[in-house]
């Protein structure tokens, strides 16, 4: 069927005007699109050549600059010398990033002027107050590798957030050293692992050890019950301070760990309970200020379930 011609003549439509393009962005986009699609061999070949060349040059730059981003042996020696001179009891060293554990070999593990005072070297993923108590530490020396691939992480910010004074950083070769004086240092009056020698243990054995809990080193009393019955540690009476802080977790990476329950008893009365089982350093805080002043007998009771119970790492600290 043929349509009759329009007596007014044919209708013409003008093309819509191009969108305003003052910056030239649309024109650039059109040109890029027409270059890339439909794909033409030279365009793709050039793209691949540019990508290979860029990646190759980046690789060469990385290999060439890598030694200059990492500390030399003399840098470590200089830091060790400075720490030997300036560290004092209650200090600790924090390594950032945490894999920089050459620091354990290069830095002093004791304060030279006070050989009885250890200088702990920490390599923790976080120094935030919620993550780490930093028990017994007043000042932290942060040994950071600022230009190392991957960077030093958030240690500086986390320590600064809980510090009253920040001294540094000073640059020693490719290492940065900063001292953080903790605003509210956590200084326990006593700890379970420290008083383990005085404890009476029934239903198993308990030893003071450094063990892995959830990937990190924890100094604690490692409890190994004889069977399904609870293992009980009875400490001689002592002052409790204002807060009792408990941590517990299965030793190792959590493989095979069953559920456990740690009960804290003061004068035979349960004041706190910490159920767990996951590979974590589970915390609990017990308000001891509500107890009568004076000395109290503290007991720790742990029950570990499972056919082959994993030892449990328990630490109890009395905070003044």
């Amino acid at each position, binding site marked *: 069927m043929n349509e009759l011609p329009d007596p007014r003549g044919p209708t013409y439509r003008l093309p819509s005007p191009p969108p305003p393009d003052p910056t030239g962005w649309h024109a650039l986009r059109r040109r890029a699109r027409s270059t890339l699609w439909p*794909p033409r*061999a*030279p365009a*793709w*070949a*050039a793209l*691949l*050549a540019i*990508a*290979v*060349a860029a*990646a*190759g*040059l*980046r*690789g*060469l730059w*990385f*290999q060439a600059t*890598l030694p200059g981003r*990492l*500390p030399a042996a003399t840098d470590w020696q200089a830091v060790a010398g400075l720490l030997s001179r300036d560290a004092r009891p209650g200090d600790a060293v924090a390594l950032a*990033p945490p*894999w*920089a*554990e*050459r620091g*354990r*070999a290069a830095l002093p*593990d004791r304060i030279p002027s006070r050989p009885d005072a250890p200088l*702990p*070297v920490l390599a923790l993923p976080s120094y935030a107050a919620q993550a780490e108590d930093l028990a017994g530490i007043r000042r932290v020396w942060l040994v950071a*590798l600022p230009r*190392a*691939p*991957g*960077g030093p*992480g958030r240690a500086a910010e986390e320590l600064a957030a809980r510090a009253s004074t920040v001294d540094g950083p000073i640059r020693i070769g490719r290492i940065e050293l900063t001292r953080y004086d903790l605003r509210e240092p956590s200084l326990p009056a006593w700890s379970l692992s420290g008083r383990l020698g005085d404890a009476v243990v029934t239903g198993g054995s308990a030893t003071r*050890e*450094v*063990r*892995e809990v959830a*990937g990190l*080193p924890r100094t604690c009393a490692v409890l190994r019950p004889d069977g399904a019955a609870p293992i009980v540690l009875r400490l001689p009476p002592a002052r409790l301070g204002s807060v009792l802080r408990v941590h517990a977790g299965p*030793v*190792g*990476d959590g*493989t095979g760990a069953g559920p456990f329950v740690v009960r804290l008893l003061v004068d035979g009365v349960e004041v706190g309970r910490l159920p767990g089982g996951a590979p974590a350093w589970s915390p609990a805080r017990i308000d001891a200020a509500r107890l009568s002043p004076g000395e109290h007998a503290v007991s720790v009771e742990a029950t570990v379930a499972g056919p082959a119970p994993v030892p449990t790492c328990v630490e109890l600290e009395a905070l003044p």
Partner: protein
Amino acid sequence: MTARRYLPLAWAATVLLAAAVTSPGVGISRDEAVYVEAGASYARFWREAARDPSRALALADRYYAPNHEHPGLAKGLFGLSRTILHDATGILGEVQASRVVAWLLAAFLAALLALWGCELAGPLGGAIAPALFLAVPGNAWHAHVAALDLPVTALVLGTTYAWWRSTSASRGWLSTAGWAMAAGLLFGAALSTKHNAWLLPPVLLGAWVLGSFRGRQESHGPAAEGAIGTVRGHRFPWAIVAMAVIGPAVLVATWPWIWHHTIPRLQGWLAFHLHHENHPWMYLGRMLREPPFPVAYPLVVTSLTVPAAIGVAMIGGVAQSVSRIVSAWRGRAPGVSVPTEWLLLLSAILPIALVAWPTVPRFGGAKHWMPALPFLALLGARALVTVGRVLWPARPGAVTGALAALALAPAAWQVAHVHPFGTAAWNELAGGAAGAASLGMQRQFWGDATVAVLPALNEHATPDARVWFQETPPLAVRQYQREGRLRGDLVPAAGPEDADLSIWQYHQEFRDREFRTWTELRTVRPVAGAYLDEVPLVQVYARPGAWR
């Protein structure tokens, strides 16, 4: 023609020489220690079989009991090499003598890549393809050790090449039947080396079936004589018949362990690998223990271990292969061999895709999909050659050569830099070993890095010190001692409790061992260590008085 003849030989000679020169620096890995001992036992069987076949047959179980999780060929060859070069002639130490087979197979792999590269992309392709494979630090490291991953990779490549030639119009040195037989024999050898080879028939058949779909590309008529990879026609892959017959025959013939109780032992072998335990493994800050595992794992690990420029060339090669298939389907590329493209593409992708399956165990770094790498290298080499031809047709070699140099220079630098710590190598995208440690990737595996602290141990350990070697098994300790690399008076200890010295090899999954060492040895300060880019790989702890 000259390049096709001499490039493979030149590559083989170079690889053999380089491996022989640099191998003594590479430590004995956990698996290697087992394979070397197993190989010695297997060699004793064959010596016995030559003297008294019936007695040997009766004792086959005893000789082949060590490490019957893997078939006998490669380990048997390690043993044969050790018998000749160590036991009989004393030319090399027992471990180095066993490793010669791995060096030879690495040389074979390089030669084959050069040959195939020549055939796909001309002499430049043949020159570049082996370099793209061997400049990956993990691959270079595997070219040294008497383990099974590089041997099976070489034999998978060999089988695939023979298959390709058997389905091609150009027969080369052999007839179609000859190439098919070669494919069968090489498949048998691969099967008798490691179970990865079971993946080959599906890949090869899949490529053949997919290759039959040509879209608008002419598909009628016989294959043109002289063309490799059959542009026209689609030959039946007789190699599959040879593989089905010869492959299992070689497996049985070279593995006397399955001469008795054949079916149950074969079932046990398959069951072991189908239900392989999941070793813990660090991946982006997570400890992978149980499935389902991240699907992206092999892609992420590949992209962080293959030097970036080489990885880009390989990705370009994969894209080029896909585009050639699509162009052929559209009838725009009459000269493209679709079956060849599928063969290269599937061989490059499927080993990685298989490991991506969420229930496949994740451990051993990139070695479990190493058979994909030669094909990625071939595709990458062809892509670089194509770029040269397209961008500067008058001087294609200049462009390709410059790009290859840019891709290979940082990689070669890294290979030299990380030597001998190949299992701890991470590329510049990861930030090297340091960046990978920050990312929370597996730091190393197989316990070979201990070799770096042996000189310090020899110099400073007190006489008769008891040493807890941890990831370095007692077999490897005895091998080090027999080769004179470790003092003979040092005694392996079972744990930190009865150790004077502790060799902590950083593994997050065994972190408690280091902390137990601190407790038992009453120190947190290492006395020696091996570091890669400041990242500790091995640290030695000593009980007070045990380190002079």
